[in-house]
């Protein structure tokens, strides 16, 4: 599992690559800490290369969202494949996030 944060067009873009399962979640939690600590712009979660996500991954997404919202910023998700979109639907997360 590989997590990369980039600045693009005044947005913070987080690229997820690989399987975000429970075993990877603590690492990812640490990797995304910068966007939690310093919310200076809207956040885009890029899932084009995300293969899998479990509830621990969803919890990371939710904590990012809660944090951004608390700072008056938006969180967008882009590139979510159909299988993962279904997981978002099942959990009601599809209603929480904005999709690009």
């Amino acid at each position, binding site marked *: 599992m590989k997590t990369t944060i980039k600045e693009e067009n005044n947005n913070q873009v987080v690229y997820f690559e690989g*399987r975000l*399962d*429970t*075993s990877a*979640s*603590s690492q990812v939690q640490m990797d995304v800490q910068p966007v939690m600590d310093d919310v200076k712009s809207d956040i885009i979660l890029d899932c084009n290369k995300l293969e*899998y996500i*479990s*509830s*621990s991954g*969803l*919890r990371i997404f*939710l*904590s990012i*969202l*809660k944090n951004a*919202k608390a700072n008056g910023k938006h969180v967008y998700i882009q590139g979510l494949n*159909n*299988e993962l979109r*279904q*997981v978002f639907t*099942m*959990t*009601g997360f599809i*209603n*929480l996030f904005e999709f690009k």
Partner: protein
Amino acid sequence: MEHRFWRIRSFATRLSLWVIVIAAIILLTTAIVTNILVREGVLREEKLRATSALENAEEHIDKVFITVETAVKNHTNEIRKNVNAPHEEMYRITHDILETNPMIVGAAIAFEPNYYPDEGHYFSPYSYRNSKGEILSKQLGSDTYDYPTMEWYQMPKKSKQEHWSEPYCDIGGGDMTMTTYSYPLTDDEGNVYAIVTADVSLDWLSNMMDSLKYYDQSYCFILSKKGTYLAHPIKKAVLDETIFDAANMLKNDDLAQIGQDMTDGKMDMKRFRSPHLGNSFIFYKPVIRTGWSMAIVCSAKEFFSSAATAGFIVAALIMIMLVILAFILKIGVRRLTLPLTQFTQAVNEVAHGNLQAELPPVRSKDEMLRLRNSFVTMQRSLEQQMEELKQVNEQKGRIESELRIASNIQRAMLPKIYPPYPDRDDIDIYGQQTPAKEVGGDLFDFYIRDEKLFFCIGDVSGKGIPASLVMAVARSLFRTLSMHEPHPNRIISQMNDRMAEDNELNMFVTLFIGVLDLPTGRLRYCNAGHNAPLLLNEAEKVKEKTFLPCDSNLPIGIMGGWKFTLQETNIAPGTTLVLYTDGLTEAENMEHELFGEERMIEAVPFSSSSQDIIERVVEVVHDFTGEAEQSDDLTMLAIRYIRPDQNLLFKQEIILTNDVSQVPQLTDFVDTVCEKVNFDAATTMQMDLAMEEAVVNVMNYAYPGGTTGDIHIVAAANDKCLKFIISDSGIPFDPTMRKDVDTTLSAEERPIGGLGIHLVTQLMDSINYERKDDMNVLTLRKKLRVES
């Protein structure tokens, strides 16, 4: 014929027939009596006519004989005067007699022998007519003709009176029928000295008799004193045959009697069989002067021909009158009974439902009017009753229809699709209910939640609608309470508390609730006063039927707050639970014998499906009760627990420790399993997710606070289903009891946790938790094929 007469349906026809029959009897009687009287009249008339004819004939005969007698007597004085004159004078006198009367064919004056000594022994001057009509004379007496010995001489001489001889055939004088009149001459001393005679031909008698014939078929005859025919249509019988000869020859006794009467000089009329005319009448009368008897014979047929004609005319008239009478009756009676026909039509209409049918008008004030009034009353009262009946029927129909709806609603409450779980191979359930009335007080139910089979069977006290209402309440309470409570005793306790409240009618329910954990076969149950279920144990080599041991609890609804006890047992695969209500064991036959537990145990067959078991028992019960009315609801539920590992395609297992870093191993394991059952990538990902969430849950909660332990995972699949069994020896932890997350909350409200088990229930077809032998056992199932 008479039988058929009675079967004539029309009153009018029958009345007409009766009148005609009676009229015919009266008319025919009259006609017959009239005919008899007419015949008697005719007979009287004919008798008079015949008598008068016979009298005329007698008169005629008398006349002839008187002229003969007169002619002879007129000459007696002349003879006396000339007794002593020359003897030739005597010839002149006989000659004179013949000339005086042409009827006389011969006359003689026969003197006593030796009266004139000069004339010799015999002297009898005699004159006669020859064939030319000339009168000749001769002396008659001679030695060959000794006249003093003759009848015509002897009879008057003896009696000294005139005498008519028996007729005889004069052979010498031209074969004529003759009779001779003799007159004795006496001297002063009174001695007979001569006999004067006159011979008369009787041929005119036959002619005279022929002229008496006044019918076409009749004849006359005359008998002499001795019965000899003097005149008869058969000429050769004349003088040759007596009536007695004829009667003897014909063997006709009537004729002989008639002959006797006639020769006795009687006058009468008789009916007899004539040899010539058949059935005949005979009139006869004597000729007093000569001692003869005359008779007229007539055919009876001809005699009464006028009467017969009259009878025929009368009969014809009667027939015509009867026909006219019948015609009049036909019209008259039809008119009189017309209202009856119309009444019949009206009543038929009434019978077909038209109560307003119009009745025929009746103007007369007789029975018809009374009949009409009765009909009107009947119509009104019928209408009224129909109206009442209609209302009653409407009410009844409404009640029946409501009852039917209630029955449908109640039936809808019971499981009715069998098999209920076609894609499950571990359970085989069949239930059946036959209510004694439209709605019943028995209930049974079952459903599977979290791989646990919740089932119940119960019997509400009483029957009918009240029981059905309580049954509906009990059933919905069961469904509602069991939805969140896996322990049957607690479900029953809560049901009991609810139902005991405000239970003014003291209705109660005997209830058995069981919860069967399908993966493990662990049965938890609670029995509130219901019949103990029958266990068919076929798991071991020994097949046996036993009752499930049950604590004696109160039925529910009697006493709120009662502590119901929980019982547990393990059900081996292959075991069947047969649940029933007392409608089975207390089914009665015609002799009021109860079906009983023994018959039930015997009736339940081994090695059968649930449906076969129930149907077999129902069949045996029906055979037992026969025609007897079903007195109580009959409800049965059979649950067959089948070895879950049957038809296993494969089985694979892995043991992990409670470390989340082991998730990739788990994912690899799940991927391998999914590949074996040919799941696509998307489903495989779902299985990865569900298993990760379930296992991580166990890792986090069963082994809390740094404790370690193993997690044993078994994956198994048959042709229908993929199953994961996750077991651990950690602290009791039932993830299914966690409150489900609310997916509609906003980001701010959403809690961080609780997503995992939500995802498992979403992704898997079933999730089941069971604490067994100090182990947490979590079973997840996924159907292999999605039913299209």
